[in-house]
């Protein structure tokens, strides 16, 4: 413990030094206020004994400067004074003095005062050190939150807004209270939404949201069903989260026409289907346990299907709304929420949030009021992006013997191969249809010699396919040749399928065609292909499919 003695009288300095050194204090001496300031600037001083009257700079002037220099840690300044008047005492206190010691010095009083102030100084130093540590950790947490916020913002960025369809409210820091709202459209045009509420707060609640949002976007992008998404997300969270953590969620899809809603509800408060006036048409209760609890084999994927119309709206919320408490300890509750919804037509999420905040009565930031309202309107159709086509010609040909005809499914494999050619993937359903019709025609009627008329009999459809399986199992000495050519310059596919069957005679071609194709198949081929042409023998068909 180092004590600075500031006095212009050498006698006083010597006396104090002797008394203090005897008590094992480290003593530094200055002759005036200016010298004292220099020392405080350069050395760690724990207590200052400061004379009032000094040349160059007196104690009243030096005290506030010394206090300023010491910053946040308490540095006791004890004035050495011979003055006895109140005005002087007050002045000492006003400039930052903490105590007085009178001349002549009393050893016991001096010792007691030094000890008391030393203790205070030590406490102040300790709390300062702790404060520093706290600040460090607070900064660290803040930084981590910033990072997570950044990642979330980017992760959720692909979230396009659908303002006419979906109105939602999430607080800016919602991820740290575990709330999440996701929105995306599938290739088939459906609008998918997920409102989730992870247990807990802070980073722990936020971690699950990231992988969950990935699963959601990926699966919506593939056009998977709501039940598959719920199932996949449950498996993911079950593996990922510790046992006591889970995610209450509602996942739903409004289809492109806006007429049908499919919902999976696990653990969130009731959802409401309302009309534009706010009248509740249906209260939809949670059906399942929250995501991340049940094992795969226990998980229930059942959905609720609702027929909806453009006048209808669906309201979903997390428990933040109904569990908001006012100063009397009352909850907002379902009943108030229902009355609020019914109180006005076309209520917005902001109206609801404002009312709930008003109810809570405090200015405190309510950060877990998450709510979404979906308007059940038809969705604008999805524009397909411009397709580029490969410039390279390609020709694939395969001739199948009886064994291969019996045991393989060549059409799908061939379509898979063709789909790899740039630009063709977008046409794969049509290409499949053309080849499947023509190939099955070649096998069923050409090679196997089955008669389509069987299909017209009662239950003939199944009879036909069991006859087919039977005939196929004993097939010998047969061949079907499939050839597909991609012509980039004409931007078309030429598909040729011929079989080793008997074909049919030229005269009966037209009529026979109809029989062989069994009507429906033929009209489909003619609509999808730009030309369909049989050879004279009737055992070979050439189809041209335009990619334009």
């Amino acid at each position: 413990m180092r004590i600075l003695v500031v006095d212009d009288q050498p006698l006083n300095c010597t006396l104090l030094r002797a008394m203090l050194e005897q008590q094992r204090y480290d003593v530094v001496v200055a002759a005036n206020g200016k010298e004292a300031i220099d020392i405080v600037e350069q050395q760690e001083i724990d207590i200052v004994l400061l004379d009032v009257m000094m040349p160059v700079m007196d104690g009243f002037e030096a005290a506030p400067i010394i206090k300023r220099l010491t910053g946040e840690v308490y540095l006791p300044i004890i004035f050495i004074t011979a003055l006895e008047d109140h005005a002087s005492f007050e002045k000492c206190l006003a400039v930052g003095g903490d105590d007085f010691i009178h001349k002549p010095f009393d050893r016991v009083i001096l010792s007691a005062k030094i000890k008391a102030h030393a203790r205070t100084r030590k406490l102040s130093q300790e709390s300062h050190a702790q404060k520093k540590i706290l600040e460090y950790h607070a900064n660290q947490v803040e930084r981590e939150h910033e990072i997570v916020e950044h990642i979330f913002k980017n992760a959720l960025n692909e979230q396009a807004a659908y303002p006419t369809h979906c109105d939602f409210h999430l607080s800016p820091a919602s991820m740290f209270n575990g709330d999440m709202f996701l929105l995306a459209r599938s290739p088939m045009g459906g609008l998918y939404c997920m409102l989730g509420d992870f247990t807990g707060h802070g980073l722990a609640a936020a971690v699950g949201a990231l992988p969950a949002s990935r699963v959601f976007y990926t699966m919506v992008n593939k056009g998977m069903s709501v039940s598959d998404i719920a199932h996949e997300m449950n498996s993911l969270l079950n593996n990922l989260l510790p046992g006591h953590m889970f995610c209450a969620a509602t996942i739903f899809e409004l289809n492109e026409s806006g007429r049908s809603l499919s919902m999976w509800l696990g653990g969130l408060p009731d959802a409401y289907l309302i009309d534009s006036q706010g009248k509740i048409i249906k209260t939809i209760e949670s059906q399942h346990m929250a995501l991340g609890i049940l094992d795969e084999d226990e998980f229930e994927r059942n959905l609720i299907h609702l027929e909806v119309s453009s006048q209808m709206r669906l309201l979903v919320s997390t428990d933040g709304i109904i569990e908001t408490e006012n100063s009397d300890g009352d909850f907002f509750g379902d009943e108030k929420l229902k009355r609020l919804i019914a109180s006005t037509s076309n209520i917005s999420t902001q109206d609801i949030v404002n009312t709930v905040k008003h109810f809570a009565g405090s200015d405190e930031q309510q950060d877990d009021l998450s709510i979404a309202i979906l308007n059940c309107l038809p969705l604008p159709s999805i524009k397909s992006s411009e397709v580029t086509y490969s410039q390279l010609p390609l020709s694939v040909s395969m001739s199948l013997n009886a064994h291969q005809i019996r045991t393989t499914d060549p059409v799908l494999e061939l379509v898979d191969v063709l789909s790899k050619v740039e630009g063709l993937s977008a046409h794969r359903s049509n290409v499949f249809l053309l080849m499947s019709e023509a190939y099955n025609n070649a096998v069923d009627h050409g090679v196997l010699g089955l008669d389509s008329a069987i299909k017209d009999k009662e239950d003939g459809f199944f009879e036909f396919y069991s006859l087919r399986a039977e005939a196929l199992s004993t097939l010998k000495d047969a061949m079907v040749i499939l050839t597909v050519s991609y012509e980039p310059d004409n931007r078309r596919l030429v598909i040729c399928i011929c079989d080793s069957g008997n074909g049919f005679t030229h005269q009966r071609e037209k009529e026979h065609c109809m029989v062989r194709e069994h009507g429906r198949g033929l009209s489909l081929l003619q609509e999808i292909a730009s030309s369909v042409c049989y050879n004279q023998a009737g055992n070979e068909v050439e189809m041209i499919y335009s990619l334009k």
Partner: protein
Amino acid sequence: MSLSTSASSDGKTLTIQIRGKFDFNLVQSFRQAYAELGATTEKVVIDLRETDYMDSSALGMLLNMKKTLGDSVSAIQIANCRPQLKKILQISRFDKKFEID
């Protein structure tokens, strides 16, 4: 290629979902899917969201279902078709007999 069925929570809707390829290879399992319809079932949904391919045999199977179920259900809906499959259904005038959504 696979087929799965699921009933809605209230038992009123049966959903038959077909993945990949919808053709005559599914003749048996497709018939099975609607063979034992519960008494509460009012509507059957054929969910084609994951169906990439179909041909005229699939159309035949759908018509067969329509014939078999008759008036025992109030609606048969073909849902979530990809655009090319929707066109196939339209060409075949299936919109006259089924609800295509």
